[in-house]
Structure formats: C-alpha cells, structure tokens
C-alpha cells in the first residue's frame, strides 16, 4: 500500500471526508472497510459506539464476533466487527410499511425516528442481525432520569430524548447509521476514531482518490453474506 506510505491514515481519511462533504450529497457514497488482520478484538468500537449513540441495554450497533478456526495447536482466530452493512440493496427497507427506514441518496440506510411505528419487521428482515428494537429499557433503572439515559445522543442530528416510552427512539427500530451526525460535521465515525487496532476505515467510495476506494479495490476483500445480494457497503479486508 505504497500510495499512502508515510502519511497519517487519520489525516488522509479526514481530508477525504472533507473533500466528500464539499460534493452534493447524492454524489457521495459512504463506505467502511474493516481490516480483519488488524482487528485485535478489543471491542473498543462496540463500547465507543454505545457511548456515542447512548444506546440502551442489549442494543449494540457494532458487536464483535470471535470465531475460532482450526484445531489445537493449529488454531486461528477471527474477530469480525459488525456495523450495519448499509446495504446498497437492503432487505430491511422494502419491508417497512411506512417508509420509516430508507436508503438516503448517499447510501446510508436511516431510520426516521419520527415515523417509525415499531413493528419490528425490518429487524426480522435484516440478515445481519444489525437492527434492534428499543423497548425502553434503562441500564440505571429508577435512577435513569438523573443520568445520561434520558439525554439526547444527537443521532440523526435530531433531539431525541428517551424520557418515556412515548419518546423516540423508544418504541423504534435502531441501528448503526455510520455516525452521520458526526460525519456531516466533518468527523469520522466513532468506531473509526476509537479503533485500537486501526482496523476501521471510512470514506466516500465514489471518490477514486479516497483511501477507502483504494482499499476496497484490492483482491483481498470480502463482503459478509454477499450471496444474499444485499450489496453491503462494509468491506472486510483479509
């Protein structure tokens, strides 16, 4: 990967991001690459995302799966972080009866917290288990009003406070949204910036100059459950 030899990867991704934001939205195509060679299974991305999006119990937008390969002593390990794949051909959006979840013109599959009726059909339909239902649980039980759990995460740039079950996103489906509230401010996604292994890359694959585009055009790329035809926008590098 000589083309970015010697340069700070964060800096590259950052300037890629800024360049992308200068284009009209529909000309951008956000994508993520996760280098499995570099993922060390630290789960920082999982908890970083929990903190960024103030997710409630049992909702994790980006869990990391640990898989053993082979038999002792020829054992291998694979850590597989799983954000939402932001499928180009998602199975979650066509089933939503009220178009509360849809693919934006920049490719991000979003959920409209003001529209979702909480039927959970999209959760059933996503093959990656990337969606969750916010039933209104709080980690802090009766103490929740005094904590961050009722404050706004800024998700989707909105003002959503989980004050009761009539306050979205409680009652709604939730999932990873490529941190668009950060991205549109010019910040990389939280899982990218907190990744201890430096395994997570983010950018606009419509930009041939972008690091992400270069990374995903290599032969060592696979997409998770690609055979389902979902056309994931998360690329795994091996």
């Amino acid at each position, binding site marked *: 990967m000589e083309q970015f030899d010697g340069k700070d990867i964060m800096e590259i991704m950052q300037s890629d991001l800024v360049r992308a934001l200068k284009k009209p939205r529909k000309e951008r195509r956000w994508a993520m690459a996760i280098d499995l060679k570099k993922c060390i299974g630290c789960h920082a991305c999982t908890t970083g995302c929990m903190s960024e999006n103030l997710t409630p119990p049992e909702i994790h937008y980006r869990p990391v799966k640990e898989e053993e390969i082979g038999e002792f002593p020829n054992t291998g390990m694979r850590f597989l972080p799983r954000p939402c794949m932001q499928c180009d051909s998602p199975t979650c959006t066509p089933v939503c009866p009220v178009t509360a979840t849809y693919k934006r013109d920049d490719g991000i599959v979003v959920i409209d917290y003001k529209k979702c009726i909480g039927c959970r059909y999209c959760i*059933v339909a996503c093959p990656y288990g990337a969606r969750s239902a916010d039933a209104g649980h709080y980690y802090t039980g009766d103490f929740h009003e005094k904590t961050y759990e009722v404050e706004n995460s800024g998700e989707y740039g909105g003002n959503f406070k989980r004050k009761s079950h009539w306050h979205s996103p409680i009652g709604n489906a939730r999932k990873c949204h490529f941190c668009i509230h950060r991205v549109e401010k010019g910040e990389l996604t939280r899982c990218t910036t907190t990744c201890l292994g430096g395994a997570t890359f983010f950018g606009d694959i419509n930009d041939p100059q972008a690091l992400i585009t270069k990374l995903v055009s290599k032969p060592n790329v696979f997409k998770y*459950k690609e055979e*389902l035809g979902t056309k994931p926008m998360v690329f795994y590098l091996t």
Partner: protein
Amino acid sequence: MELFGVLVPTKEKLIATVTDIRKGKGGLPLYASLLGMVVGFYAIAAIFIQGHAHTINTNNLVPWGLQITTYIYFVLISTGCTFVNFFGYIFFPQQYKPFASRVIFLGIMTAAAAFFSLATEMGRIDRMYNFILSPNPSSPMFWMGVWYTCYFIAIVMEYINIQTNKHSNKVMWGAFFIAVITHSTLGSLLGAVSSRAYFYSALLPIYFLFIAFLTGGALTAIVAAITVRQQKMDAAYHLEPFVKFLRIGLGLALLVGFWRTAIGLAGHVDGSEVFALTAANSIIFGLGVALIVPFLMLRMSQSAGWLAFTGLFIMVTQLKTRNDLVVGGFKVPLFRVYDMPEVVHYTPSVYEILVLVASISLVSVLYIVCEKAGLFEIADSKGVH
C-alpha cells in the same frame, strides 16, 4: 339500514340479556370470558401505560413473540370463517345456511381481536396514520394493511347481507377472493423474509391459507356443534359439512406442513439448522399431535359433543403451532456474540399471555351475548315471513 336487530341485537333483547347476565344467569363460559376480558384489558392498559420494557418479553433476538402469534392466529381463523362460509354456501347450501350469520360474525370478531393483539405489539401505535401518510408499496405489511381494510369491509358487507337475508353471491365471491389475497399476503409477510431460512419459502402463503381453512373450520365446527345441540337440530345432517371441512383442512395442512419440514430439513443454508433443531417438535407435535390425532379423532365419532371437542383440540394445538412458527424463525441468532445463547428460548410475559386471553375473551363474550340476545336468529326469522 337498521343497526339494532341487524348488525347488533335488538335493544329489548339486549337489555333483557344484560339483565339476565346481571342476575347471574349468563352461564359459566360467559363469566369466565368476562373475567378474561377484564384482566386482559387491564394488561393491555398496562402495556400502553408502562411501556414494552416493563411488560413484554420480546427482545432483539426474538423481535416477534406471542402477540404476533395471537395476531396471526386470529386473522387466520377469521379468514377460515370466510372460507367456511364460502364453501358452505357453495357445496352445502341447506346444511350450512343456519350457521352463516354466526360464522361471519365470528369472522369479524376474530379479525377485530387480531388487531387488538397487533396494537399492543407496535412500538408506536400512535403513529399508525403513517400507513396512509407514508405508505410503502414494497412492504408486505403495508399491503396487509390495505387488504385487511378491504377484507374487513367485505366481510361486514357479507354479514349485513346475511343478516338482512339479501345474500349476494357477488359479495360472497368477493369476500372469498379478498380473503385469499389478504391472507396469502400475510403468509408472504413471513415467507418473503429471505434473511430467515425458517420463514423464507413460497410455501408459506399457501400454508397460511390452508391453516386458515383448518382453524376457521375448527372454530365454526365448535359453534355449529353447540348450536345444533341448543337448537335441537339434526346433528348428523347439519354437521356433515363441518366434518368434511375439518378433514380437508387437516389433510391440506398435513401436506404443506410435511413438505415445509422436509424441505427445510434438507436445506443447508444459514439458519436452516432451526429445522433440525425443531424437527422433533414439528414432526411429533406439529404433524402428529396437531394434525394426525384430530384426523383420527374425527374417525372415532362425529357426535356434536365430540366434534366440538375435536374442534377445541385443533384450536389449542394450532395456537402452539402458530407460536412455534413465529418464534422458530428466531431460534438461532443471526449474529451470535458475547453471552448470547446458541439456541434462543423465549417465554412470553404474563402481559403477553393476557393479551391472548383478552383476544379470546373478547370473541367469546361478544359471541355469547349476541347469541343470547338472539342476534343469529334474526336472519332465520326474517327469512320465514
């Protein structure tokens, strides 16, 4: 069009019935159902007031549970009622006719009960208007909403026709086709989910229709058997169509159930391990106990009492089968991480069970009251003069 005496019992009769009930002359089933309704509605209120977190046991691994089971169960019964009505009129006009208004009444009630359950399941029921403001034509659930509305209108029309003795074949055929479309759409709601091998199948819409016919047949058979007894009708003659329907229903369900299991077991795609995991239950219970046993029961006797019992047996076993179908899709987590179980077990909460109780009780209370108030004799009497 008159309301009292057609769609609902006449005022006098209704008042008389209520007075009777107050005096304690309603009979045990009625009081039990009333109690069921009270606790059931308490549970429903609790779900709305306290929210899902405190009342419902579904979670990320099992997004749909008993409430969806209940919903599917009742809508299928409703469809079944329409089917029974249709085939009754077509093939056994004389034997069937005395039950027509009861059957369609039940069709309406079960459809309503289904929505009760569905309403408690939605995270944000208050936003249902989005079905109209923000429809999504690619969603089976959206179409289910559309067809459901049509279906509801159609059976209500059918009911009015029956009650006013203006039975129209056009409406009946219409209701039948709409029922077929609606409930095969419901089948597609699960069948089209390619992410879950346990659901994903072209068989599912057909399966739903057959099951609808079976469970609708079972409920109407119970009602017919009771009616035949109460009214001292010729049991053998009048119950014959119901026995036939049940046999056909069981046969069809067995056929499609067998192939769904067999094909599922042969599958090697992600998630088809559920078929193997649940094979014993699907074969022994789903096919054996729930379908073959009632088939044999029907061979043993066809008396009104036995038929009612067999009908009840089918109703109960099919409820479990419905739940196995819904929950089965979630048995194996799609992405198993951290402390997630390898095989997911889900037990409905008390509230979820009470929603089921509320739905059952609603149907039975309304039916019994209307029955006592003579609603279903109106058509007959009107037909006489």
